[in-house]
């Protein structure tokens, strides 16, 4: 109904830190002048490893509708294997952005009318020395490059605050590397 709201849906697995990643993006958006940021985790009977999703809405103005996103402008996929389990493009607007943590190049994916971006975040995270499975900060780098919505710097600052006392340097490095390694598919 309101056209000033950018809607981002995050698909992850329980335990992958999708909520933390969305919260970091929310913080960076707020400090970048978006007065309205609302992050709504969708709760059900989620378990570690099972598909989960989180809604993030961003606007220059206060957001009143806290309901989950049904027509996202962009979707973030924490694990390319989720593509086999979940219809991540459900409701995605024409020309929407799909960001996938995948070892495969973006050109390998074909979503009609959509823009696909990939980054091999598992490798990135491992190369900076993060424990296996800690990929949510790398995803933020992918997000920054793919959307151009926010500058990388406020995102890295938000990571630094969120991960205070828990390896902020490695997480920042993962985000920076994933940003640099993001591959762009052709719009089809």
């Amino acid at each position, binding site marked *: *109904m309101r056209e000033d709201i950018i809607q981002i849906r995050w698909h992850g697995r329980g335990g992958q830190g999708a909520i933390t990643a969305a919260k970091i993006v929310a*913080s960076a958006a707020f400090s970048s002048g978006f007065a309205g940021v609302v992050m709504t985790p969708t709760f059900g009977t989620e378990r570690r490893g099972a598909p989960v999703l989180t809604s993030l809405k961003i606007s220059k103005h206060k957001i009143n*509708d*806290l*309901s989950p996103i049904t027509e996202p402008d962009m979707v973030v996929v924490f694990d390319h294997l989720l593509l086999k389990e979940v219809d991540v493009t459900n409701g995605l607007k024409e020309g929407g952005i799909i960001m996938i943590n995948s070892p495969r190049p973006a050109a390998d994916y074909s979503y009609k009318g959509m823009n696909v971006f990939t980054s091999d975040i598992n490798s990135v995270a491992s190369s900076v020395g993060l424990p296996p499975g800690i990929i949510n900060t790398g995803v933020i780098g992918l997000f920054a490059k793919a959307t151009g919505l926010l500058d990388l710097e406020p995102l890295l600052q938000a990571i630094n605050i969120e991960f205070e006392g828990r390896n902020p340097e490695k997480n920042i490095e993962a985000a920076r590397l994933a940003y640099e390694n993001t591959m762009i598919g052709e719009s089809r």
Partner: protein
Amino acid sequence: MHVIESGNVAAANGVKLARAHVVAAYPITPQTPLTEKLSEFVDAGEMDAEYIPVESEHSALSVCIAASSAGSRPFTATSANGLLYMSEQLHWAAGARLPIVMCVVNRGIGAPWTVWNDQQDAFSQRDAGWVQLFACDHQQIIDTVIQAYAIAETVSIPVMVCYDGYILSHTYMPFEIPDSDTVDGFLPAFSPEYALNPAKPCNLNTVTLPDIRPDVRGDTAPGYMEIRHNLHTDMREALNVIKTVDEKFYSIFGRGGHCFIEPYNCEDAEYIAVCIGSLSYQLRDVVDALRQDRIKIGVCGLRVYRPFPDEAIRETFKSAKGIIVLEKALSYGYEGALYADIKAALYDCDNRPFIHNYILGLGGREIKTQQLLDALRQSCTIDIPVPQWIGLKM
């Protein structure tokens, strides 16, 4: 300082700033992260309070009753069946006139089990003698928790601060955490008129005979009925106190100013939608859309359910053609309780508006903006029987 956190964390920060001395709580979804955050504050030494892990909600409120009787500032929080398990002590706390503050993170009641949001839990305890305040967003949660202590300690009546489970409790949005010194200026340390004191033993709330009688000092003591009458009159007086506290809060923090009813686009409104909690903000977008179709409609969020702000309701609704009450609760066998209350408040108006009633969102049923748009448009157009249901799949 602005932060982006969940509604539960907003509440926990309010409790911390209010300098609660005793926290006693039993975890229940979706309240759990609130009490977890408080236990972290206490553990880290950020909050000078005793955290008492109890074995049930009944015990949680019993601990708060004891702590408050001893003159300290207690806090507890619960949801749904946890609130119902407290029910006996809810009435006790109100009858004993103890200024306890409790967050109720609104959730549907089992059976069947649900962990998701509606407001049947708080509504079902409407007549327990507690002040019931409702918040629409995180800023209101933290601000209302702080104000709740000022209200409770002025009128010696316990206060519930209610907010929607998940929709607010687990959603992240920006809010400002006020400065601790400024809050101390607004809410001074609690100094009760009397408190349990081992040096001066006394009985409190013993068996009270039906009629008045002399007490141990020979003074005429009120009977049970006088005590109930006093609770009622003080509850009505609480309306003035809520207003005074809101004005003071506004003058210091610059937030508030609508302590009973928060109106949106109501100045020239022919139709006004009314509800309690976060839904009233969601309806603002709906009202904006209907205004584009030249339907003169506004929305009001009710911030206080008990004491009922009937004068403010008459003042706000008196020139409207129609009132549309949307509720996440139901008085089974009749209609929405809020609808019935609003209808009664408007009975004496010269120009009685028509009033519609919609039941929605029970047990977390999603409330789609389009459904709200359709419902409000319908109510502005045709007469319909009540209550109507939104989102019912039958």
